[in-house]
């Protein structure tokens, strides 16, 4: 049936009203025929709506909403470390291991986190509380080593400071 216009079951309903409104705000910033320029923002919005990760269905929904091919949205979703394509814990800890943080001891930060949480980089704790991720430079080299929890940056990390931050999380 590939020779006929296929009206496949639409997936845009997977994006809730709030997300769509949010995406529309981004779409409005670009020329009308360049909707796909909003793909990064749209994927982020879709991810936030979905407990912090993107399913393939959601990626397709974003692609359809922005009138682009699914593979093109998928390329973006697989390129950036800020997008997750598997379920994540309640708190996503993104540890920078790039050059500045590495020189200032990010290896120790990772080791401490892994020990304390009982999970390795890229894993989620069994109770679903924490996901530990290694990410590229987050642009906070002045206070290296650093990590990001949800949307908050924490710098000048030491084992004590890390424990304090984690203790405050639910």
């Amino acid at each position: 049936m590939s020779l006929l216009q296929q009206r496949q079951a639409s997936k845009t309903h997977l994006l809730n009203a709030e997300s769509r409104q949010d995406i529309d705000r981004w779409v409005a910033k670009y020329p009308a025929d360049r909707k796909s320029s909003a793909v990064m923002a749209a994927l982020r919005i879709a991810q936030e709506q979905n407990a912090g990760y993107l399913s393939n269905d959601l990626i397709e929904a974003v692609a359809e909403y922005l009138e682009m091919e699914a593979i093109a949205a998928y390329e973006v979703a697989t390129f950036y470390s800020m997008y997750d394509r598997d379920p994540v814990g309640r708190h996503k800890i993104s540890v920078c291991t790039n050059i500045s943080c590495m020189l200032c001891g990010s290896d120790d930060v990772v080791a401490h986190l892994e020990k304390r949480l009982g999970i390795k980089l890229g894993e989620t704790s069994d109770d679903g509380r924490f996901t530990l991720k290694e990410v590229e430079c987050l642009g906070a080299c002045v206070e290296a080593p650093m990590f990001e929890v949800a949307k908050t940056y924490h710098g000048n990390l030491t084992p004590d400071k890390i424990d304090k931050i984690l203790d405050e999380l639910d």
Partner: protein
Amino acid sequence: MSDTINIEINGIPVEVRTGAMVIEAADEAGITIPRFCYHKKLSVAANCRMCLIEVEKAPKPVPACATPVTDGMKVFTKSPLALDAQQSVMEFLLINHPLDCPICDQGGECDLQDIAIGFGKDASRYNESKRVVRNKNLGSLISTDMTRCIHCTRCVRFGQEVAGIMELGAPGRGEFTEIGTYMERAVSSELSGNVIDLCPVGALTSKPYRYTGRPWENESHAHVSPHDCLGSNLQIETRRHQVMRVLPRENEAINEMWLSDRDRFSYTALQHEERLQQPLIKQGSEWRQVDWETALAYAIDGLQRVRKVDGAEKLAALISPSSTIEEMYLLQKLMRGVGSANIDHRLRQSDFSDDDGQPLFPALGCSVAELEDRDAVLLIGSNIRKDQPIAGHRLRKASRRGAHIMCVNPVDYAFNFPVDENIVVHPELMARELASIAKALLTLTANAAPAGLNVLLENVESGDAHLTIARHLQTASNASVLIGTQAMSHPQLSTLRALALAISELAGASLGYLTEGANAAGAWIAGAVPHRRHAGEHSPLTGLHTREMLNTGMSAYLLLNVEPEQDCANPAAAVRAVHEADFVVSLTPYITDDMRAYADVLLPVATFAETSGTYVNAEGKWQSFAASASTADDIKPAWKVLRVMGNLLDVGGFDYLTSEDVRDELKGQFETLTPTLKYQWQCPAVMPTKVSKDLTRIGHLGMYSIDMVVRRSAPLQATADAQIETAIVHSVTAKQQGLVAGDTVRVSQGGESVTISIAVADAVPENCVFLPMGVGGAVLGDAYGSIELAKV
């Protein structure tokens, strides 16, 4: 600012177009700069870095593909800095590339091999482990070895920019980037095979050709495509006189450097098990293998007998529109020589009432290359993207330039360009839609209406869509009205054509035909039509057209490259006709059980690759070729068979030595006659408006069921385009008939029926059944006839 500027490459002064990239300037000057990702037909990606060169005053090497020329620029492609940069990039690219050249199909024609030799270092310093990438399944045409991929992204850009559907992408990042399709889908583009040529390494190779040969063992022959009316240029590669593969031959005026999958892979049918190897004759009910002499004597004897008993007017000849012009000319000369003008190549046509008004040959109305300069195009009954993929590509280019493309179609076809106005109606309403467009044009233009048009359109009304189409056609400086292949079987073809002519004249647009087969133009020029001799000359002896021949029942048929059960507008009637005939001679490359049942003599003839000949494309360009491959001794080129038959029948004038002699005789007469036949306006008598109450069949012609060869190509038959195994109806029609998707139904036309499952899609108009020709082995009635559905 002047159009050209002067730069210097390696001390050689070069004049180059302003805005060109350094690599283009170097290519024009014949200076080699190594490259992988740069390709002249694709956008610049500058991601492989192989083309790094030194530019005076630039602090570091720059990529030649992404550096625009500036006046007085001094470029060095061989300086120590440039060479060092190129060597380093090469070393980098080879880090993850496997050393499997001995088992790689690309070996011997590999850019990576060549450039590594020419621009690389002799050793690698890399000792770490190499990455391995899982292969992807892209379908039956393209084979993958993804570990070899160097991420040049030519295949991805080809999909986005040329094929028009982005099927391949590059998900992942850095070392984890992998080229693939979304969720492992097979690629479905009709131009997909071109990524094999584009791939500079052995990551994407031809699946049918895989492991069968090495490029240096192949001989290359220039040839012309036998499957559509554009005449794409081919390079047929053979080894020991057998076709190994088909590649595009660059011709900017026709196919550029592309080839449709149909043209590229149809050769896979040449060694099909159904290939007829020896002449066969039927005596009683027994088939006997005989030598050519016996077979021809038997054939001539049978034809003479019918001629004597029933008269020459009971002899008929049907020829495939993809036969060469030499075959067409000789067959019609033979038929007219024995006193019958019953010859036709328009096997799928149903309406012949405007035969006399037809132009010399059905032409495109502009050149193939000019299609991309169109500003507005109205397609009538055309699935151009699949019917003539290369023409579809040109229209897509026009569309990307801003052209308005509009359709009046019986099905909502999936195009790879946006359609401005997409009128999808019941086939019987297509004429009314065209009338509405003509009516809209009458209100817009001062051009005189053809005689009788005003009266005809008296009760016709036009809506917004018609007005928009009319306005686009009228305001465009280059507009075309194109009648497509799917319209050719339409029972009101003459009305559609007349209205298309009216529209084109009122709008000042050119009228063009996208004909079926490779050589419909050649068929008209050669006289393979019942009412005209070669070069459009009036035939004193008028014969019957296909439909009349098949409906009145002839005593003897001469078939050339024709399978009546597959190739005719009404397969059931065609099969009945050949079964009832006293004597059937079939010149055919293949043999089937059907042929054994109806034929009396089967003569094995060469396919397109094995014969010399000429095709005339839709713009009227004559393209001749020599035989690329040879066959078993007992398979003969059809023109030679016809030559002998002509002599045996004492027709006279059949003493040709070569196929060029045949062509030159026809061409000579064509040129002395300088025919100027134009399409003549014939006002349709009535405006067809009524829609029958019965369900109407839409007998779509699939791109991979058009001729004997394509139908036997296993890789093409395994593609999505060939995999239609259901009848499709509109959701409203499904409800009326009490059907849901997946139901099994018996569809019948006349006495014939087939059991098939139903799919539901609103791309098909209400009250219609979309049932392509030949689907499910069906031998049914008219392509656009009434049809019955019954749930089983």
